[in-house]
């Protein structure tokens, strides 16, 4: 069968999916007894109606860019890395250790090392599932799920028994020193004399995440390795025939994926909480799945989808504040987006394909 034009594939179909997800969510809101249009306007105003809202939206979006890229890179090699949650948790640990271990004089020195720390720890947590998939054929989905649970047990253990700040009741590390504090949106825009709300946690990690969008685009579409990853993802047997080693591709793509998830730590641990707390990831690893599916595994798509989910998260928090709609509405929307873009894709795609080709035939 002929292919659909790109704009339908990457723009129209995701938008239709989103529209259906929002429509179904609107029915839920209606059922709860609130007005969906009011809810939508509170969400949008709360998320992008002020610099305060934007500050939170972009903070969430930064997390989702990292985890979304992580899932995307694995998708290109036809690996479903469902372990972003655990890899990001370990990445947070790596970032925290870097911040706690040295007497950093300035964030410019601390940030690059923290990036390495987060990436290495995240990649390490993906390494065992990757190795087992590559060498022993153990299903990556199951092993990464198992590693999520192990990561959470490990972090609880470390925070309760090893890393807890002396004298503190809560299972969390002490606050990082001033030299490891990242500049926030308020600080950075202040350098240019632009006013920005002081409270939201958006920080320089957002710019780092944009940089990584570019890196990943370059890697996947402009390098030999990226070509090999995509070739392997399209057809394992063809890739093998062309001399591409499956073991290498599985390992490399999963390590990059884990590293990207781990990088989330610079935003959430170093940028926001400035200490390591229990569950610093808060489901962002799973949202990465929705973001990657919606963004069609393309870094630019991931960026847009991550901002969209940032809006949903910040808007959802505002909604819970002002109405009777609990925060969990976002989880429902997220579930519907994953279901429609990921699993029910054919339900939307097939009628559109039929309609489009009918129109093409009628036109010629």
């Amino acid at each position, binding site marked *: 069968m002929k292919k659909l034009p790109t704009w339908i594939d990457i723009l129209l179909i995701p938008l239709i999916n989103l529209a259906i997800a929002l429509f179904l969510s609107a029915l*839920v809101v209606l*059922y*709860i*007894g609130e007005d969906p249009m009011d809810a939508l306007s509170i969400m949008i105003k709360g998320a992008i109606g002020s610099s305060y809202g934007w500050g939170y939206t972009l903070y969430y979006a930064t997390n989702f860019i990292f985890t979304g890229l992580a899932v995307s890179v694995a998708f290109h090699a036809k690996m*479903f890395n*469902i372990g972003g949650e655990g890899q990001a948790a370990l990445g947070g640990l790596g970032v925290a250790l870097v911040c706690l271990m040295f007497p950093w004089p300035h964030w410019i020195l601390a940030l690059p090392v923290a990036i390495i720390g987060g990436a290495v720890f995240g990649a390490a947590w993906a390494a*065992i599932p990757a190795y*087992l998939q590559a060498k*022993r*054929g*153990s*299903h990556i*989905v*199951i*092993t990464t*799920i*198992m*590693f999520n*649970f*192990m990561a959470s*047990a*490990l972090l*609880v*253990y470390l925070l*309760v*028994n090893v890393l807890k700040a002396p004298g503190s009741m809560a299972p969390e590390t002490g606050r990082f020193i001033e030299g490891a504090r990242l500049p926030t949106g308020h600080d950075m825009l202040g350098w240019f004399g632009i006013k920005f709300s002081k409270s939201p946690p958006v920080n320089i990690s957002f710019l780092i995440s944009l940089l990584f969008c570019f890196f990943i685009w370059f890697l996947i579409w402009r390098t030999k390795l990226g070509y090999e990853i995509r070739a392997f993802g399209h057809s394992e047997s063809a890739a093998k025939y062309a001399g591409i080693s499956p073991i290498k591709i599985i390992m490399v793509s999963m390590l990059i994926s884990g590293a990207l998830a781990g990088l989330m730590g610079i935003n959430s641990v170093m940028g926001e909480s400035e200490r390591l707390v229990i569950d610093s990831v808060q489901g962002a690893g*799973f949202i990465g*799945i929705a973001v990657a*599916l919606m963004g069609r595994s393309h870094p630019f798509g991931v960026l847009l989808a991550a901002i969209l989910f940032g809006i949903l998260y910040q808007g959802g928090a505002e909604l819970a504040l002002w109405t*009777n*709609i*609990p925060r*969990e*509405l*976002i*989880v*429902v*929307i*997220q*579930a*519907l987006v*994953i*279901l429609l873009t*990921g*699993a*029910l*894709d*054919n*339900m939307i795609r097939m009628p559109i394909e039929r309609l489009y080709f009918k129109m093409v035939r009628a036109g010629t």
Partner: protein
Amino acid sequence: MIDFDTLLQVLDSSVRLSIPLLLACLAGLFSERAGIFDIGLEGKMLASAFAAGAAAFVTGSALIGMLAGIFASIILSAVHGVASITFKGNQLISGVAINFLASGLTALIGQNWFRQGGQTPPLSGSARFNEITLPLAELLRDVPIFGKIYYELISGHTLLVYIAFLIVPLTWWILFRTRFGLRLRAVGENPAAVDTSGISVVRQRYAAILICGILCGLAGAYLSTGIGAGFGKEMTAGKGFIALAALIFAKWKPVPALWACLLFGFLEAIGIRFQNIEIPGVGTIPLQLMQALPYILTVIILAGFVGKAIPPKAGGEPYNKE
């Protein structure tokens, strides 16, 4: 060292804790044996636990609660079926979506109905499955060892516990001794061959998913109306994934599934009872290691170092008719 009474109590609580795992594990067994991966066990259980808790509270009947739970679970099963069988979508992604859908909707609707932060009101009396004292249990209670085992360990569970244990041999019989079971396993191994012999792959897979829904429904109902007294937010707390782990641990076979679930239930019971375990010469085993042990064991099994776990051949693949 621990004494006999403590041991019995730990074993008794192992049995209670292993039941939701066992029911969900057998649910996954039917689905995965038919070639449909199901990582949505967790979500189906959660939806059922909520529906059962809510319906039992409103009607005061645990049985009606159970039926409501099964119904909720079947609805999610149907979503999974439409996505993965009819529209040939990715079964894993569909499972992820179902988990989130259940997590979001139960909290949302729970808050809307009962205004208790997503919980259902506490259940008591006939709104719960109450413990059954087996015949002669009271009488034999004072007989040393065996009487105690009978009274503490075997008697005094809820109806769903005994049903769950009966479902194990039943599952074995259905899968390995009936034509239906043969066909079910065949669509999981080689759907094309089943199709060639004139049997509908689609219908067979939907049947498997329906059974999966019913069993997950029982598992959820047990959580909120059997072992628990009402629904709490996120009350499945990863049990669906431990069940999945048990399924792999048991290499997709019903009787080993029973042992795997009992083992994982036992680990949980020990963790609850002892918190940190002192082993002379080794040191303290932290609680978190006990909690992570089912997952660690499963990864070791998956790695194939101790007897390889090989999933059904056509698992995860939508069937395309030639």
